[in-house]
């Protein structure tokens, strides 16, 4: 067991647990944040995705010890109903999710892509989303939402 300190959704947190335990279980069980999900435990689907210092991280395989002192953000920290991230706003406007269990992967990966390259082309978007799964097959509305988020960001930038 070891004490590990990091920042979760803007707040300092401490977890006393096996340092080899994946971050996902610390977030869900020790800290009670339910939103990152267990999908595969193998970093093959994205359901557990969070941001580590702004970059997508599959929390199901990242050992807790590797997170010490870092900044972790979940979709709860990405935005709020009052102040949504453009990709969250676009997801709601496009009514994207069906079961919704996969959304952490798509939202956090798309948010990082849009932050880095707000004008990404369709081909660049498709490339950036490799390795993410959605079993309900909402891919068409995911693409629409990402393009809508690009438009939202462009109009915000020009405003």
């Amino acid at each position: 067991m070891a004490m590990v300190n990091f920042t979760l959704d803007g707040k300092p947190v401490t977890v006393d647990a096996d340092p080899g335990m994946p971050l996902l279980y610390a977030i869900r069980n020790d800290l009670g944040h339910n939103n990152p999900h267990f999908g595969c435990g193998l970093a093959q689907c994205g359901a557990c995705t969070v941001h580590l210092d702004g970059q997508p991280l599959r929390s199901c395989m990242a050992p807790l010890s590797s997170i010490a002192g870092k900044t972790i953000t979940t979709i709860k920290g990405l935005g709020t109903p009052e102040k949504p991230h453009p990709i969250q706003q676009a997801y709601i406007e496009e009514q994207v999710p069906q079961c919704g269990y996969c959304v952490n992967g798509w939202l956090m990966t798309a948010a990082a892509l849009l932050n880095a390259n707000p004008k990404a082309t369709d081909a660049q978007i498709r490339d950036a989303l490799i390795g993410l799964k959605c079993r309900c097959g909402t891919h068409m509305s995911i693409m629409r939402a990402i393009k809508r988020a690009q438009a939202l960001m462009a109009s915000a930038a020009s405003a």
Partner: protein
Amino acid sequence: MAAESALVFSRRDFLLTTGALVVSASGLHSSSAFAQTAAGSAVAKQFPPPDQLDSWIAILPDGTAEAFFGKMDMGQGLEVAIAQVVAEELDMSIDRVTIRMGDTATTCNQGGASGSTGVSLGAKPLRNAAAEARRILIERASMVLSVPAEKLTVTNGVIAAAGASSKSVSYAQLIGGKQFDSAVEWNKAVGNFMDVKGQAKPKAPSEYRLVGTSAARRDVPGKIFGTSDYVTDVRVPGMLHARMIRPPRGGSTIASVNADSIRNARVVREGEFLAVVSENEWDAIQAARALEVQWTDGPTDAFPGTDGLHDHIRTAEVVKREDATRKGDTEAAFKSAARVVQAEYQWPLQSHSSMGPACAVAHVRDGEATVWTGSQKPHSTRDGVAKLLGLPPEKVRGVWVMGPGSYGRNDAGDAAMDAAYLSKLTGRPVRVQGMRSDGTAWDPKGAACVHRARAALDASGKVTAYEFISKGLSRVNVMFNESDPRDCLTGQSLGMPLNPGAGLGTPSESYAFGAKLLAWEVVPPLLDRCSPLRTSHLRDPLGPEVHFGSEQFIDEIAAAVGADPVEFRLRYISAPRDAAVVKAAAEKAGWTPHKTHGKRVARNGVLHGRGIAYAQRGETVVAVIAQIEVSPKNGRVWARKFTVAHDCGLIINPQSLRQTIEGNVVQGLSRTLFEEVQFDRKQVTSVDWASYPILEMKDAPESIDIVLINSTEIAPSGAGEPTMRCVPAAVANAFWDATGVRMRRVPLSPARVKAALAHI
């Protein structure tokens, strides 16, 4: 989710918060109403009682309404559709109507999510109950206001005299927080066909103002901001975390277990039912990996292996055959035929592979049980758990909480049973969740089959006889719900007698060929007990499987007589709505006949083609056109564009319908191009997303054009599955158009496509 309060809430609490005439987890009933239902009836006791209006509709003290729905929204927008239907009949705004779904304590057994009947059957009693509630409220308002009922109007839950709005009374004032205490006529059906009627006549479609609009779903924001709870998030104080231990080989059994091989966890075992439990989830996961179990070998050849599966099916004995359609004398027609066209098609075993493996939480104590489940049939969960634990069903409460996706009988039913039995054995609340292989290798599989098709042509090229015979593993080797523990790994591992069913399916179309035989044959399961390859319902059971063959075969007949696939279909389709969707799809896609099938090279060696397929599903009809690109070099098939024409009668919510159709196309495309459960002679080797790949964004279509035909005069029929059954054949027909090569086995994976096109 803090679940503890849900276990112990009292009937009084429940009435105060929701107004519903229902039970608590302790199994108390509204005894008078219950007795009415049970008296003189052969139907099993139902609770809540379907013949009471209060079981369906409640008006709360604040004037908002609650409707109690015995089916669930799996994410395709059913919740808001039901809210639209109820709000429509109550003359309220949608945002003042809440739908309570899938809790057996508060909802009647409407069969759960089943067969895309959420609207077509599920909405019926809600519509009638809401209309009846409105009728009773108007009647009461008439007395209160001393205005004749026919002179009253309702606006958002306020009843007023026409032309004298000062004379008004609200639903809240009339009944808020109190019960209707009024009977409705129940048709005595339990499950999908449950219906009730009051004296009121629901609105005519011409009067609709909410039904038919694209009202926004209410479940979306919670999913996007991470505030919605899933079944994986249910926590009961004092609960143990569990992982099931499944045999490493089909049919192998436990020789010995070394309980000392794990730390911070303990073994729970009865017969072949084996699990580890721990206070801590990570400890349970590590213990499941570390546990030393000696297993017996099991049968030498438990399975035929992926590549031997279809040979196995061809030669296996037939345990049941059904000639579902037999019209005219096919044998005579084949004997006198000028030409015979024939082909065989193969469909593999496929996995639900829901987004996450199943999870359930159970609390068994003091002669009662509560199970939180992602199963799409929580009333079946309740019944199955009751049988498993030897409890009366009224002492068991099944609570559906959104799970990680559900497309039929996946691993959720097993998880619910496992959790209940573990809670019984440990005396503690238990949360069990699978690892990825439990959701991929161990879920019940969609049936594999082989289809034999023959058509007899006369000298003029007219089809005089048509035969389509499917032979395969049963769609109900284990039942499509978990109402009997014998159909679950739990019961089977405890040695319960087996309960196999035999069923498959036949094409759903309206081709008027001279003589016609549509039949199916079921073969025995590959392994009879605790099989990772047991088969059951996977989204649109036998839809994609059968129509991949039948709708490709229609194209093969068309090609044999030199006809265009669209024109050929229209030549034989007999139902006008069927012809309408084929025409609508062709028109939207700009389909024109061409005779240059095969090697339709555009650029860079990529071949282009288009194909059509059409089918019925219940009263719904769909036609799908796929436009694809095939790369012989790397075997990639990109279905770039789809066009769908869809008629499911009256449309409740066009936006949800479009997205449901899109999901069908994409999931159907994934099953067409990528999905096949891999296994050797001992075990399933598809255990994760690497060994069971599904479609990713790079292979998603560029566009899906959808033509919605809104047949407002026809009652709504299902939309959750029909489109999927057209996708595989549309793609395969496009593949032939592009390459001149027929792909008669799914999936059209890169390796198989490369092999098929090696000569090009």
